[in-house]
């Protein structure tokens, strides 16, 4: 009885306090909001909000897909499954995992949590990283989009496939040879209640992974929107003259623009002043290194990993696109 009374009282107090706070906030916002909005809501700010929201909205379904897959792996797939599927020797497991990237259709947002969960399930980090890089770059959706964006140029699709897969495999081997465990800081999530497994672990893993990666997606979207608004694009076209500069420029542009991998072919096709090799570099680097991905990787694997891995990947991706471009295009 006394308990019930106390609960009722508590609810009443919360409602009154919360309600009062809400009314205050609404009043202040509705009075000050329009005044501030007129001063601050200039066209660039409005465009920033739109681009920022667009990248986030676009990323959410893919991020959710990725975290559902990764939570399902964590909760339902026993460790020995992966040990049986992947060759025991890392040198062989890397290309197999890279080629397996074909099966995850989605933006790069999805692959980071999946790779993290693969590592937690005992997959060699080198193989998981090869998968992380190849999944967003060579899945069927992306390849079809590329062939639509470059009609009558099948060598562009082939070039993208070869250069992306090559980069992923080389990065996997590089990690196997030179990578250090202490750079990778995997959140040891499941140690507390690993025994759990099943639906409960699934829900708890899913909410944790989604919220964590979602926060970093928002950070990355903010950075990309800022670059989109701050960097004037006509300025970029000044560099189209030199073959080397244009490759480097588009490789940098891919990092700052954060176009998702299903759309970057169309953007690359519209950069008509640049050489085919430069546009290939744009499409190879984009799904593997960009601001949003660096933010996501920092969240999942730690900063010291993200910085080293992203810069090495950038170099390998540029080298591989130049080689493939010289060979095929």
């Amino acid at each position, binding site marked *: 009885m006394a308990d019930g009374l106390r609960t009722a009282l508590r609810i009443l107090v919360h409602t009154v306090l919360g309600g009062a706070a809400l009314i205050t906030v609404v009043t202040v916002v509705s009075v000050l909001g329009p005044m501030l909005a007129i001063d601050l809501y200039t*066209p*660039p700010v*409005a*465009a920033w*909000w*739109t*681009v*920022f*929201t*667009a*990248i*986030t*909205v*676009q990323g*959410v*379904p893919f991020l*959710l897909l990725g975290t*559902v897959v990764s939570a399902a792996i964590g909760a339902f797939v026993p460790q020995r499954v992966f040990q049986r599927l992947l060759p025991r020797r890392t040198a062989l497991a890397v290309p197999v995992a890279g080629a397996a990237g074909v099966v995850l259709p989605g933006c790069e947002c999805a692959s980071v949590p999946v790779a993290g969960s693969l590592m937690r399930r005992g997959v060699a980090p080198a193989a998981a990283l090869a998968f992380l890089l190849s999944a967003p770059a060579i899945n069927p959706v992306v390849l079809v989009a590329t062939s639509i*964006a470059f*009609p009558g140029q099948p060598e562009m699709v082939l070039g993208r496939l070869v250069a992306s897969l090559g980069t992923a495999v080389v990065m996997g081997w590089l990690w196997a040879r030179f990578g250090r465990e202490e750079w990778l800081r995997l*959140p*040891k*999530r*499941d*140690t*507390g*209640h690993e025994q759990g497994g099943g639906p*409960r672990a699934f*829900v*708890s893993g899913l*909410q*944790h992974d*989604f*919220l*964590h990666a*979602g*926060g*970093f997606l*928002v*950070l990355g*979207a903010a950075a*990309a*929107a800022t670059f*989109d608004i701050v960097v*004037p*694009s*006509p300025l970029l*076209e000044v560099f189209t003259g030199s073959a080397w500069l244009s490759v480097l420029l588009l490789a940098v542009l891919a990092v700052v*623009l*954060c*176009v*998702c991998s*299903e*759309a970057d072919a*169309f*953007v690359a*096709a*519209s950069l*008509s002043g640049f050489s085919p090799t430069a546009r290939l570099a744009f499409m190879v680097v984009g799904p593997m290194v960009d601001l949003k991905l660096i933010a996501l990787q920092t*969240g999942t694997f730690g900063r010291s990993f993200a910085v080293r891995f992203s810069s090495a990947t950038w170099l390998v991706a540029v080298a591989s696109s130049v080689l493939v471009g010289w060979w095929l295009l």
Partner: protein
Amino acid sequence: MRRYGPAVLLALVGAAILRVSLFSDLYLRYVQPGLRPYLVVSGVVLVLLGVAVGVLVRTADDGEAQEDLGAPAGHTHGPAGPRVAWFLTLPALALLLFPPPALGSYSAEREADRRAARGVGTFPALPAGNPLDLTLGEFGSRAVYDSGRSLTGRTVRLTGFVTRDADGTWYVTRLLVSCCAADAGAAKAEVRGVGAPPVDTWITVTGTWHPEGEPGSDAAWPPVLDATSVRRTPQPDNPYEKR
């Protein structure tokens, strides 16, 4: 109370996604029509997940001690879940309270005239219709790259917003999007023969193509329309054209 933070956050993000995709067409300001089913499913899943997490926190309260859910050993964040997750409130509240507007003349003017490089060639015959409704992308590529000059003699109708150059030339412009608003590029046609409405007004222009230069040459860009009428129109549900 703080332990319900993750549940509330998930439900908030889900509600924001549902508000723009299920209960309105606002999502078209940000992404392509094809993404709608995925957005609706994601929104529903997130709301349900929020409820499930809330229930789990509650049962954990009743049963065991305080530890659990998103507060595993050796992890830096407390019972409120990962702290970085609170950044999600920013886009979620923006979508719920003040959905950002569609991109307009500001973005169109910043885009250099990036037209997809393609060879000059013949195009399939235009459908019947007088006037004929065309997208600005279609009008532009036929005006610039069609060696068969299929636009000749046709009265066309274009819908877009107004942009202006410093020298007074004005254009009917539309942004082309392939994935989300972040990759928007502009397609435009110069309008002659009618005075310019204010910048960013949505209009429908009727007129005939005015050929300039050889097909594929720089002089052919941007395409020109000799307008007979300009009518104001509300902003279409989908403010962008598919690239």
